[in-house]
């Protein structure tokens, strides 16, 4: 537990919760990032502009982080590029097939006690942990 950051993580989590809450209470939308992105990549009439605005905000927030909290981009562990590309493919395909990711299922759906989101969240944490276990213990953490 050498990198344990409970306070920063709790604060960040509260901000994520506030952002998702604002989107719900003001605009009536679910803050599911994979769904928001998919709706911009394959736009539906009258339903893509708010998504593009949210994503622009995400990028603008990233620029602020780069300026005021550059440690946020101290990635610490970047897999070799072919593995990273494979990971990206799996994240893109999997989040669409499973209708959501960490934000839509993990935060919004779990808070709503949605059975689908509870099942999805348990599943992706399990396969994520399994993948890390196999990489660390079979590949010896060399990747």
């Amino acid at each position: 537990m050498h990198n344990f950051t409970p306070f920063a993580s709790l604060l960040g989590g509260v901000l994520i919760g506030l952002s998702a809450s604002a989107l719900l209470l003001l605009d009536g939308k679910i803050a599911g990032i994979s769904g928001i992105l998919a709706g911009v990549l394959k736009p539906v009439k009258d339903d893509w502009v708010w998504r593009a605005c949210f994503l622009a905000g995400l990028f603008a927030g990233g620029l602020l982080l780069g300026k005021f909290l550059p440690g946020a981009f101290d990635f610490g562990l970047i897999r070799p590029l072919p593995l990273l590309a494979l990971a990206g493919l799996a994240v893109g395909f999997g989040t669409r097939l499973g209708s959501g990711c960490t934000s839509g299922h993990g935060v919004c759906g779990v808070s709503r006690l949605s059975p689908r989101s509870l099942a999805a969240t348990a599943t992706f944490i399990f396969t994520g942990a399994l993948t890390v276990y196999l990489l660390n213990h079979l590949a010896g953490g060399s990747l």
Partner: protein
Amino acid sequence: MKGLATSFISGVVFALGLGISGMTRPVKVIGFLDFFGAWDASLAFVIAGAIGVYFVAYRFSRTMPSPLLAPDFSLPKRSDIDSKLVLGAAIFGFGWGLGGFCPGPALTSLASGTPAVAIFVAAMALGMYVHSRVSEIRAEASAFAAAPAGGMQDA
């Protein structure tokens, strides 16, 4: 118009939350998923913070006739757990554990200008495109298969 400004601001706050919490750092994400190694429990606090706030907000929203700036709530209505949901989540989890990025942190980290992140995001967009193409092809195939029977058919 107001709704678009609030979407933008929500995005900014979401990104700041991801950055402050450690979610934009694969080393933290992979550390969290490493339950049988040097487990870093930090991200459990991200989840607790986010769910704690949203749990209350969602219950409050149930008492509102409509959102403040939009005509109605657009919430998912399904409650069935099907194989697509579980398989999709399993594939996503594999990618999450492998790369250490999920969609929000990856898009936020694009702003760092790191080529590796851009490669991840491009691959993620490609994965979404592949899913959309596969769904279309499957829909066409099942429409074709259903056609000779002449009747109404439902998967």
